[in-house]
């Protein structure tokens, strides 16, 4: 086992012996399940209404009626769920002074940060993969285009990864887990809000910059089934930035 794997294994162990991950996972899955149910219900209502008006079988686009709203809602749930997953990562180490052990061991800060990030990414991926039961179940009763669904999950993975990166950074900034959670919640929200701000700015240079910084536009394109390199790059560079910032924050403890 290399040091990163060692840290991932230890973090996963720590997550699964505490009830936190079960509670968060259960809440996430319950909310997504409920939302899926209500979106399916409203989609079938819409179908019924169309049938009454047109008196024919309407050709329904499930991707548009169901999956896109569902993915958008899942994105919103992540804003709440992710900070709860990441808050303990570094804050707890600082509180319990176990950080001194990590920093006096022959492993690099880059390995510590990577290990922490990857462990929480594994947990998030696990939670996300459980929600694939929704499209799989639906595919038995309806036909839809799978490509936007694949891309939607890809988008949720990238989106979650970026938020996890923000959460990891927030957790490294404080030794109080609650503050870490609120901090990442605030940062994610701010990144989301820049999208709204950008539409108020309109077609100005600042408007374009803000639109690029916000994840809304990138996420929207992906869940529509459009795979653009620049959207993927947005997420990857965002994660890299968060990784780097966390690395710097931890390195700076040593100088205090």
């Amino acid at each position, binding site marked *: 086992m290399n040091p990163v794997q060692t840290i991932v294994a230890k973090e996963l*162990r720590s997550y699964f012996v505490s009830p936190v991950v079960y509670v968060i996972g259960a809440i996430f899955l319950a909310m997504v399940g409920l939302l899926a149910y209500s979106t399916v219900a409203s989609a079938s209502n819409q179908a019924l209404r169309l049938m009454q008006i047109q008196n024919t079988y309407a050709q329904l686009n499930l991707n548009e009626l169901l999956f896109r709203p569902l993915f958008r809602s899942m994105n919103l749930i992540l804003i709440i769920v992710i900070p709860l997953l990441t808050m303990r990562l570094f804050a707890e180490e600082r509180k319990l002074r176990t950080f001194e052990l990590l*920093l006096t061991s022959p492993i690099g800060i880059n390995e510590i940060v990577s290990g922490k990030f990857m462990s929480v990414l594994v947990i998030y991926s696990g939670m996300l993969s459980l929600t694939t039961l929704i499209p799989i179940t639906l595919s038995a009763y309806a036909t839809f285009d799978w490509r936007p669904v694949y891309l939607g999950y890809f988008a949720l993975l990238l989106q979650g990864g970026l938020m996890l990166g923000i959460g990891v950074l927030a957790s490294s900034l404080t030794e109080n887990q609650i503050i870490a959670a609120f901090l990442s919640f605030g940062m994610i929200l701010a990144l989301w809000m820049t999208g709204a701000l950008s539409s108020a700015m309109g077609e100005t240079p600042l408007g374009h910059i803000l639109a690029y910084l916000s994840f809304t536009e990138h996420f929207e394109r992906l869940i529509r089934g459009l795979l653009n390199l620049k959207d993927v790059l947005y997420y990857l560079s965002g994660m890299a930035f968060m990784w780097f910032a966390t690395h710097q924050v931890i390195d700076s403890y040593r100088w205090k």
Partner: protein
Amino acid sequence: MIEVQEVTKRYGTFSALDNISFSIKKGEIVAFLGPNGAGKTTTMRIITGFMPPTSGTIRIAGFDGLASPMAIKKQIGYLPETPPLYLELTVQEYLTFVGRIKGLDPAQLLSRMDKIIEQTGLKEVQGRVIGHLSRGYRQRVGLAQALIHNPPVLILDEPTTGLDPNQIIEIRDLIKNLAGSHTIILSTHLLAEATAICQRVIIIHKGKIVAIDTPEQLSAKLQQSETLSLTVEQTYPDFALELGRLPGVLAVTQGTSPNSFMLETQQGRDIRSEVTKFIVSREIGLLEIKAQPLTLEDAFKVLTKESPADR
């Protein structure tokens, strides 16, 4: 084995460590002695590579602290003041994790694990969750953690603080048994502890090294001035004066009550029996006489006065 040269650590304008230098030979046990806030923990954190010094150099087993931090970290086992324990893991899981991040391969880890659990007396709790262990056991797990990769250098920050007397003796014995095969630095604010287990004592006060000496010489220096305290049932006007005329008495001062006195006596001379005889002959009722134990503060006063040449 350990060489610290002209190390200074500043926080803003505050100097936590001011130009300290010392060296420790292989297999020695050395104590850092000093009151809280003297700079013991800071020195240890700098040696372990947890924080860099503002200036100065550290060499451990021939490796330079700045040039090869990873090599140095492999040489050191470190027990911080608060043992760095993951409370949700079992003792075995925790030691496995520490062994791995210290760079042990699975075979080494397996053989070290049994040995360390045996050595630190953790056999009966090895499968238990650390959060459920008592303070004494946690301290042992902390010690096991520092030992798992069999490092030549051990740095122990106040290893006996907060333990009950039995646990203190156990931990001290454990440390004594490790001597010889390991070079050990431990910190303490107890004079008795430093003299009990260490071959040399480095006294740190306000970020400076006040004295480096063997416990024997240190106690010899500290005995040069001794204080007796005594309490009598009743006194008479010239009592204090007559006490002062006794051979070996340097000065007499009034104690906390009118009937108690403090006698400063000549170096290395126990005159308790002479004083007792004198008081008994005056028939004024001797209630108490005892040699005043030297507090750490007194020791500092004595040492800073008498040993500037040792720096």
